[in-house]
């Protein structure tokens, strides 16, 4: 029997009826057509499917969609500001912090949550926060640099906004 | 230059050197080549195992001895 799911995804409110057994990643990808969140292991071992729920990094394969009821979900599709890349996205591009790109959405969403909690992380702090993320391409160091570069950009942006 | 060459007992390969012929021979995995070895009291599996597990050319050397005696000769 279907249940009502009311939540906000990337700023858009949704009111849909779904089978309660569905995972959040399934609803995002298959019901809402948001394919930017990828799936790689379906066991909570790789963090590729990471999204934000109320600003926190969450593995969308490890929560039921119904657990997002009443909450605000942000996926990779919600990061751009119109046509402009978010500073984290731009930092990833500028630092060659992806190769095949399949894990990148999850990396960026996790970074988004991390930098809200810790705006100026050290290399080790980034390593610790991102340790669950599987990447087979990059060797991780360039991702780490991109995240810290993004931290700097966000701090600069914040400082600029303060002076306005 | 050798006066005679050796011909492979099972195909048209010709070589002046029984060792070189042995090398050719152990590269062939068809039934005909393997059966001929059996008639001479050798096993393909044993020869190739020697060749790929022991230092030296033990498999080729053993087969070269046989070919020197048994392989038909053709004029150079």
């Amino acid at each position: 029997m279907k249940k009502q799911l009311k939540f906000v995804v990337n700023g858009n409110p949704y009111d849909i009826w779904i089978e309660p057994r569905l995972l959040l990643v399934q609803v995002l990808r298959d019901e809402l057509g948001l394919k930017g969140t990828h799936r790689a292991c379906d066991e909570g071992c790789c963090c590729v499917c990471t999204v934000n729920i109320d600003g926190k990094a969450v593995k969308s394969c490890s929560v039921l969609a119904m657990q997002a009821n009443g909450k605000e979900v942000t996926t990779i599709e919600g990061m751009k500001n119109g046509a402009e890349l978010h500073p984290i996205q731009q930092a990833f591009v500028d630092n060659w912090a992806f190769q095949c790109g399949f894990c990148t959405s999850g990396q960026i969403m996790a970074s988004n949550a991390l930098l809200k909690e810790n705006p100026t992380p050290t290399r080790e702090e980034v390593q610790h926060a991102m340790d669950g993320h599987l990447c087979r391409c990059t060797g991780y160091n360039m991702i780490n640099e991109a995240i810290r570069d993004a931290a700097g950009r966000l701090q600069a942006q914040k400082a600029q906004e303060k002076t306005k | 230059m050798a006066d005679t060459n050796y011909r492979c007992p099972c195909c048209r390969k010709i070589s002046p050197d029984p060792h070189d012929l042995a090398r050719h021979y152990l590269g062939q995995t068809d039934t005909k080549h393997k059966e001929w070895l059996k008639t001479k009291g050798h096993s393909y599996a044993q020869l190739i195992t020697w060749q790929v597990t022991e230092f030296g050319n033990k498999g080729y050397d053993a087969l070269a001895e046989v070919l020197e005696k048994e392989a038909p000769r053709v004029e150079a």
Partner: protein
Amino acid sequence: MSEYSIIGKPTKNVDGPAKVSGEAVYTFDMTLPNMLYGKLLRSPYPHARIISIDTSEAEKLQGVKAVITGKDTPGGRYGLWRRFPELCDQTTLAMDKVRFIGDAVAAVAAVSTEIAEQALDFINVEYELLPAVFEPLEAIKDDAPLIHDDCSNNINITRHVEWGDVDEGFKNSDYVREDRFIYGNQATASTEVHNSLASYEKSTGRLTVWSSTQSPYYLQLGLSDALKMREGDIRVIKPHVGGGFGGKNSTMPDSLNAAVLSMKTGRPVKIVYNREEEFTCTERRTAMNMAVKLGLKKDGTIMAREVKLITDGGAYTALGPTALYLTGTYASLPYKIPNYRYDGLRAYTNKMWATSVRSFGATEAGFAFEAQMDRAAHDLGIDPIEIRRKNAMTPGYEAPGQYSVGSCGLSECIDKVEKRVKEKWTGLAEDEGVGYACFDYQCGGIFNWIDTPYAFSGAMVKVNIDGTVDLFTQASDIGQGTNTVSVMICAEELGVGIEDIRLHPADTATTPVDLGAWASRETMMNGNAIKEAAAEVKKILIRVARLKLAENIVYDFEAKNKRIYLAIRPERGFSYYDIVKDAIKENDGQALIGIGHYTPHRKGMVTPAWAFGCMASRVKVDREIGHVKVKEIIVAHDCGQPINPLGVRGQVEGSIHLGMGWGLCEEQPNDNGMILNPSFADYKVVRTRDMPQIELHEVLTYDPEGPFGAKESAEGAVAPTPASIANAIYQATGAEINSNTLKPEKVLNAIREAEKKKPAKR
């Protein structure tokens, strides 16, 4: 060489904005209207004859649209080593027997993945169990069960390489050592699982397949052979791919069965593996047993080397023979060996098959060679750097009848690493060691085992009236940055900006053949084809400019920054726009198209060029628990001329990551054909906290064979990583480890063995 506008400058990934915003489309993300979902039924047994398959109950399930078994497929045999038909040993589904746990025996198409999965349980297969064999030496015995009925002794392929007089070489050596090494399997474990979407058009008899593949052309050939269709009736499109690492070269049951199911149902069908299938039913790195003998003079000069190798091929051929061949080549590099012998054999076994995985052959050969060099250096009282320097490959070397070496910056790389280690790593802590390893890697392969009549890479460039460019290349970007390199090379040659080029990649219907992404071939081969195509158009544009300026024939023109101009008087020239328009007009209005191709010639049997390098790893060993921490890596690398330094760094660091995995933790233990850890929970990989800082230096050598002098950078740094780590452990503790992985219990046991022989600190 003149200053480049684009080559050698750090350049952002042309796919970057799409990849960071979730807009890049992978096969995994694709759907088509009316699409069905497919699933494969797999054998639970390693070796069995199929007596009967009853699909009637599965067909009755609501939502199931088709169920097929081997008899419903065209039954064509396919494989990658097409030059030898007997090695084309795979079919779409198992026909009469299954040969490994996971071999596909039936396929279902249904309206949802869940229903397709349920339907599998309703397919009844009656098997007659056959004795199975899992060890190569057992498999080649006369009384071993035959895995392929037409292949006696289960010997897939052998190889012998010999030059000089090895036995004489050993006789003349002052020091000879023999060692045996054992290597286990490694998974590719790409983040995007194998998946394909097939759409068959009954009205035209044409098939389109989108697939997560490393080679659209190879997939097209595999489909053609297996389905007995004309190549031209099959279109393969490669969307973005979430990693390959060698595991997506082969044509797989997902694409073949999606195609047959689409033919049967008249609807598009998509098959997506789950992660367990990805670990157990795809391809693995080749496991090997290697015996190596090395002879040196007492001053450390190598006199002779001998290598005996058995590889565990698994149930099918795939690209496994290439691993056998290349190990024989890499065991003779990167040091000069005047007398060399190699014997290798690949045996079939009843396991998931083994194939080409990143740096195949080089990693395994390198681990053994570098270990022997360190141990020989120790016994002879020679510095580990000195012994490498003394024997290092040099430019212009010829391995008789095998390969030649063009440019080679290995000595410079060794010097660089030595200098940096002395400067940076002063004062090692307790139980810390520094290990060295040199490396080399090829730029694509020459031996045409796929048996193609086509040039190995082709490209087409169309320059439009406004100076924009359409670049058509089938080269496969699977993350290594080939798309960006392609655009950079084209832009540099034509003198336009990267932003002016639209890339049309990896579609067999619209692009000339390229053999795909393997053995680091794309920059060299695809790059050369693109450069030639662009040069063809540039020639036309320069001719028009010359005529317009009416300059003396001795003066040269250049194309840069969207201008064609006199090299000695840059202010005399024309904008691209004007010249392109004139060129089109003077050629009867025909589009300006350039076509390029590349196949290596007169370069021996292996590769047109070699990249080289040297690596040092600083490692701390915990003697209590055997844990190994890689603290830092310094690597000097000769890739000729980096096209994109950002991309090169990415490839080197990615290689180091995979090398660390092979060396430290990636294992697939196997019990009677069953892989015991088919999940990321149990298949241990290197994560971000394990990664050391990496200091990378590029040594420029400019190889004339490569586009703008470039050589490979995608795989070379895999091999020296586990080798230098193992050597660092050896230097710190004396522990000799002759197998991967360097897991704690093994390191601990090796340390204890070493302590028995000599004092604790060396």
